[in-house]
């Protein structure tokens, strides 16, 4: 469908302002990638419906149809997904939810599936009778939150979950992803989310590797220091100390820290924010508009969430300057570390670029579903995180001060809840159609706030396990 009336700004279709002559394998791959998406960048891809800005419509119906099929049953060649089945459920349900679908009709099936994947020793495995893993437990708990309802929440054996989390907690503050498994930032994030959503007590069992005789250590202690050790000289975050900065871990690190207290205080306490922002911002490329996961790597739709999803959180931490371009930032938040960072401008990243990349390059116009980039097949993983990224581009989050009187007297042991407020992002030129808004997604939990609040308040109100 070649359209003649649309004009794409040259920023999003022409070569970048500066290009080096030297060719290396990295630049060759980058050039090939740009060539392969030329039609998309120029608003000339087949079967997409472009508006006057050269931005295609969100193929909502097709994506819904696609995601209704990515919860199985799968043929034998999906055997590689045998240890990740909760992920397929979460990605599909989340994607459907972000698109505005009601997924509560899946409650019974999620409940039944979750039951057989839960181990008596706590947590959920990747399938029936598999070792419990923090990633699959995270995916399963979020799936239960998405379908909602007491029956879904009550599936979780919280006492066993607590013991299992204690077994995973390491003396250096981090978490192993499974007993005897690797320790990384992903595990730290997943554990924090699980602890928060299920209101797990923070005390350690005496057989926890992190237990100390003086009783000072708990499930969250040392976590901030662990995350801090993962920030690299580039400013981004690596999966474990001493590795390369990587987008997925940036999101996990921020999400983890945001659950340790008020993010406005905790995040700057453990991370060098200016360096992190510099690195995150460097991940957005022109003309693509999308994000890459590491320095000198290619853009990929999934980083719309892993990197793009960091911005709502960062912007909320900095506060957003309502009265922009005056050079006089209101004193945003009290900064106990004496940090003196200005509020974010109207936006810290190019929302237009991200929206263009997502709608123009990541949609599969034939069978629906979203993808890494043109030429790649759609899958539930990319569908979920590309849509989450679209949500980040379309919304703006703010942190408000907690209403003190609502704080429960005995909630000292649980995570303090900051108040997150969200609005559609209205500043600047909007290049997508109003009907193509997706739901607002909580910057930490990667599900809509109402679902996060429903499960957490259910367990906050519960006495004992």
């Amino acid at each position: 469908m070649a359209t003649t009336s649309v004009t794409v700004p040259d920023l999003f279709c022409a070569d970048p302002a500066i290009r080096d002559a030297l060719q290396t394998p990295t630049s060759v791959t980058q050039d090939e990638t740009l060539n392969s998406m030329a039609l998309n960048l120029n608003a000339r891809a087949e079967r997409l419906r472009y508006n006057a800005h050269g931005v295609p419509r969100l193929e909502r119906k097709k994506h819904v149809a696609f995601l209704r099929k990515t919860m199985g049953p799968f043929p034998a060649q999906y055997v590689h997904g045998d240890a990740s089945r909760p992920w397929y459920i979460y990605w599909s349900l989340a994607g459907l939810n972000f698109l505005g679908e009601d997924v509560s009709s899946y409650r019974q099936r999620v409940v039944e599936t979750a039951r057989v994947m839960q181990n008596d020793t706590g947590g959920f495995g990747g399938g029936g009778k598999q070792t419990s893993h923090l990633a699959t437990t995270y995916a399963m708990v979020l799936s239960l939150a998405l379908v909602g309802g007491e029956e879904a929440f009550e599936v979780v054996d919280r006492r066993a979950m607590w013991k299992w989390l204690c077994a995973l907690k390491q003396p250096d503050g981090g978490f192993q992803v499974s007993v005897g498994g690797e320790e990384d930032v992903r595990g730290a994030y997943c554990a924090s989310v699980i602890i928060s959503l299920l209101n797990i007590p923070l005390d350690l069992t005496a057989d926890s590797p992190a237990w100390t005789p003086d009783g000072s250590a708990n499930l969250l202690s040392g976590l901030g220091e662990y995350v801090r050790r993962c920030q690299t000289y580039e400013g981004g975050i690596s999966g474990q100390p001493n590795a390369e900065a990587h987008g997925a871990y940036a999101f996990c690190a921020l999400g983890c820290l945001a659950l340790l207290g008020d993010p406005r205080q905790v995040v700057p306490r453990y991370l060098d924010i200016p360096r992190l922002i510099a690195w995150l911002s460097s991940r957005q490329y022109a003309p693509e508009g999308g994000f890459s996961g590491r320095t000198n790597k290619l853009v990929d739709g999934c980083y719309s969430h892993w990197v793009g999803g960091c911005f709502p959180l960062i912007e909320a931490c900095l506060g957003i300057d309502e009265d922009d371009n005056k050079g006089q930032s209101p004193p945003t938040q009290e900064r106990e570390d004496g940090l003196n960072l200005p509020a974010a401008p109207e936006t810290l990243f190019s929302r237009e670029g991200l929206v263009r990349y997502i709608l123009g390059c990541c949609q599969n116009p034939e069978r629906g579903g979203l993808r890494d980039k043109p030429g790649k097949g759609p899958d539930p993983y990319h569908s979920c995180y590309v849509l989450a990224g679209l949500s980040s581009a379309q919304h703006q989050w703010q942190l408000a001060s907690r209403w003190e009187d609502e704080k429960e007297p005995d909630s000292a042991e649980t995570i303090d809840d900051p108040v997150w407020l969200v609005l559609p992002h209205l500043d600047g030129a909007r290049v997508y159609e109003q009907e193509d808004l997706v739901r607002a997604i909580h910057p930490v939990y990667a599900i809509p706030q109402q679902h996060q609040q429903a499960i957490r308040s259910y367990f906050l109100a519960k006495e004992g396990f």
Partner: protein
Amino acid sequence: MPPKGKAANKPKANERECSPKQQPQQQQQQTSSSPAPAPTPTTIAERSALFTDESRPFESARRKSGIASLPRDAQAACIALRFARLPAPARNRLPPKSQRELWRHVNDASLPIRALKRNYDYGAAGGWSFERYADWAAKRTVLTCLEGASRVFREKRESEKRGGSDPVTGERVVLTQGEIDEERGRRREMAALRKELYGVVTGRLEADPEWDDVVPIPQEEPEGALATISYLGEYAEAISYLRAVMVKKEYSPRCLKLTETIIEMNPAHYTVWLYRAANIFAMKLSIPDEIQWLNEVSLEHLKNYQIWHHRHLLIDNYYPTIADDAEAVAAFGASERQFLQQILAEDTKNYHVWSYRSYLIEKFGLWDVPEELTSIETMIDEDVRNNSAWSHRFFLIFSNPANSTPGVAATEHDPAAPAAVVDREVEYAKEKIALAPQNQSPWNYLRGVLVKGGRKLGSVEDFVQGFITGLGSDGEDVKSSHALDLLAEIYAEKGDKKQAELCLRRLAEKWDRIRAGYWEWRKKCLETA
């Protein structure tokens, strides 16, 4: 008397089976009322229909025109058969005399007491020739014999496990290796026959006598379960045996082999990797052997995550055994490096490989091995944009305990970083930037080194200025947006907000427009600095 009746019928039955070709003749004799002779059967189904007719001699005539129309002897035969075919309790209600008469009649007329079922379903075999069917039946007999022998083997195995003794000799039951091998061969034969005869595929483990004592735990999915996968038989079987041995916490050579089978089919199955490691440690198997095996698997599955954690666990376990032997440590480190280079040659930015490499350096203390730095330099020479190699270099130099203070963050100044090292690295980065000034990797590196070394960013101002001409003027030219970014910081460091702002404005307006929001924020940072 019933036995007599049976006896009278039996020879006939045998006769029929043995000489199907005589059937039409016999039929003619017996059912004189049937009009035309049936055609000679050529298939199992046709012959079966013939046998059925024969077992119901008067049926077609009776159905056609009622019992009254039959000749008198046929009528008597019909009635006799009706009673003879009654279940015994019903038949016994006849007075004894009538019963005797009934059996006499049946015997004298040689009546077939048992009738065959009509339209027996042979499935595809209905169309087979007799020869083909005979061949099939012969194989079935062989299978039955094998199954019998196999049952004997299993019973013997059970007995051996119980510590039982032979009822004849009184000796304790012990299976010999010969018997086990024989059984293995037998199972293979049985599996092949089952497949041929019934199309049933026998699992590899089910067919292996070594696994007889394990009761597999099959996958159970509730009604409507989500994200189910229709596993192939072999995978499903292996997993169900895995569950069984994991429950038993068995660590044995056969379990190790089982993990290998599953890993071949699904290397992403983290549970099986953890269990494999547990097997190796429990049996105290040779770690170098396992690493050798792992090397091959790693090259086949470059993107796999679990492989590298497995290696990590192996090393954690192995290192203490060689830690005191400097030569062994060096040799092992060298062989690991060689392998890592091989795999990185295939996939230069593989995240897990690089992460493992940094772990190895730290664990083995390989900081000062010259080959490590050389090999990184080679990789940077091959692709100066390989950021993974740059990251590793930074780690190798600035996490080296000789050059660093524990607990100092990566983005912080470390007084322990030697000036000479900082100088060298600054020069190295500059040299690489010159090759391709818009390449961000060495710029990030350069900035990282300056901060680590506690140097002023302004110490590289001349170098940075070299990429920027006539900023803000008509003839403005910028060879590197990263240079302009750093220049803004250098001005800010010097307190020259105006120039810093100009750099940031030009970045937002022209040289790096996609990041305009960020440059805007940086301008605001100038105010608060």
